[in-house]
């Protein structure tokens, strides 16, 4: 008997080491996995709809993927050039504005703040446009000197980016195709005693993540479109870009709407439009928010997320402190997920007489 115990300890020890090594080995691709899962969650309602009509699952996924690709390409073809143009325009006119009127308006601290904000935005979002440009020109300048190292750099960046772009749909594809077998495999390692409870937990996680991701996406799209329409109607410049950002920012509770509104107002100031426009733009964005809060949000998300506004607000701030913009986006969903999980876990551990 003693021998068995030793073997067991050694075996489980080795298993633990292998597990830790595997975690370290795969830690870099964790983000791919998460992004792929999110992608799958977004497309799943569509494949489910096709499957309902007895379309084979593989074919359903291929159809949905093709439609999605088409949408992306159309987006790249029509929207992206417009957005980039607007982004460049806004940048140059902002610089011009700062040179021309900057001195006169320097006493308004807010413009310093905006300058700071743009600077931070660049670094926080991780799109160092100047650096990229420098890198590319520098690359050609140094062609004959440091060709190898520079090429390596560029290739590495390119490969990382491409592998991310390619990996997400592939991970998503297998998640959609093999959803049940992945779940089944995971459940097969759970002992009988905990089997039913684990099923309940897995389904709860699935429900929370699924509803949240889909609801958020719908809200982002609707608010983005509404903001773009309102801003275009008011004649605000760069309305497409600002509407887009406002839509995404809207996913941040409480703070997001202000980002959109402030951006729209800055656009009015920068492009030298009549200051009375500020009122109109503020009113327009407020209208969008009113629609969102009273119509869109209750319909797509509903009252499932009953939590005190103060808690949500503080969570967003804490997330922002720790992880920047990403933290502001993710802290509240993670909070909801954890709260839901802990509640369900506690109740089930009690009911299954485990604790």
């Amino acid at each position, binding site marked *: 008997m003693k021998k068995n115990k030793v073997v067991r300890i050694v075996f489980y020890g080795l298993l633990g080491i292998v597990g830790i090594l595997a975690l370290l080995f795969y830690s870099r691709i964790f983000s791919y996995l998460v992004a792929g899962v999110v992608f799958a969650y977004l497309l799943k309602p569509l494949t*489910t709809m096709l*499957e*309902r009509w*007895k379309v084979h699952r*593989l074919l359903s996924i291929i159809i949905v993927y093709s439609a999605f690709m088409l949408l992306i390409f159309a987006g790249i073809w029509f929207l992206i050039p417009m957005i980039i143009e607007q982004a460049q325009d806004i940048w140059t006119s902002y610089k011009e504005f700062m040179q021309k009127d900057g001195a006169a308006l320097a006493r308004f601290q807010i413009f310093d703040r905006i300058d700071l904000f743009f600077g931070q935005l660049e670094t926080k979002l991780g799109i160092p446009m100047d650096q990229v440009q420098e890198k590319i020109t520098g690359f050609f300048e140094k062609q004959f000197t440091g060709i190898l190292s520079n090429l390596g750099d560029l290739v590495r960046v390119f490969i990382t980016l491409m592998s991310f772009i390619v990996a997400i749909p592939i991970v998503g594809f297998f998640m959609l*195709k093999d959803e*049940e*077998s992945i779940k*089944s495999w995971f*459940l*097969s390692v759970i002992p*009988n005693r905990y*089997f*039913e*409870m684990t*099923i*309940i937990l897995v*389904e709860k996680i699935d429900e929370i993540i699924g509803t949240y991701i889909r609801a958020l996406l719908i809200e982002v799209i609707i608010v983005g479109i509404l903001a773009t329409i309102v801003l275009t109607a008011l004649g605000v410049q760069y309305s497409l870009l600002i509407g887009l950002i406002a839509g995404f920012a809207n996913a941040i509770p409480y703070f997001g709407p202000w980002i959109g509104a402030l951006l729209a107002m800055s656009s009015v100031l920068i492009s030298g439009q009549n200051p009375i426009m500020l009122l109109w733009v503020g009113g327009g964005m407020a209208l969008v928010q009113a629609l969102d809060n009273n119509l869109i949000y209750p319909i797509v998300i509903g009252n499932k997320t009953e939590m005190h506004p103060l808690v949500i607000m503080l969570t967003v701030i804490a997330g922002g402190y720790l992880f920047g913009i990403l933290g502001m986006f993710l802290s509240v969903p993670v909070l909801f997920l954890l709260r839901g999980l802990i509640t369900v876990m506690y109740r*089930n551990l009690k*009911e*299954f*007489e485990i604790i």
Partner: protein
Amino acid sequence: MGLFGLFKTKDRDGKTLEAKFLRQIAFLKQLDYFELKTFSRLLHQREYKPGEVVFREGYPHAVLYIVRQGNIDIVLEEGDAEPIKLAELPEKSFFGEIGLFIDTNRTATAIASQPTILFAVSKIDFQDFIHKFPRIGVKIVYELGKRLSDNIVETNKKLRGFTDEKE
């Protein structure tokens, strides 16, 4: 076998056997091959030793089971007293269907009386399946309704016998 087994057209033997087995289950017998195959994706295979508890009375109701192999005893446990055996479920029978219809905890305890293999289907997967394929869903729910009605008739008979005895 193609890339990652993506384009394989034939089922592995196990899957075909599963479809054959599933057709023998009362509430699945009306389903065609495609429908059975889709349903079989929801199954989790579980193995139990003799005497192992599948679930106890009062546990939450999350899973429906089909007996693939072996035997399950449904019993009522009353404290320290000898448990009362309500039913013996052989291969091809199923249990835990009440939870599909009403929100209740387990009404009795299920114990494996010999080495047993069960197919488990989660209640939510089952309900999703019925919503996803309403036409199959109707067949399944109809068969389950039959089974529940049978149970009521049976219970009524027993109850009559019981009251007759008393008089």
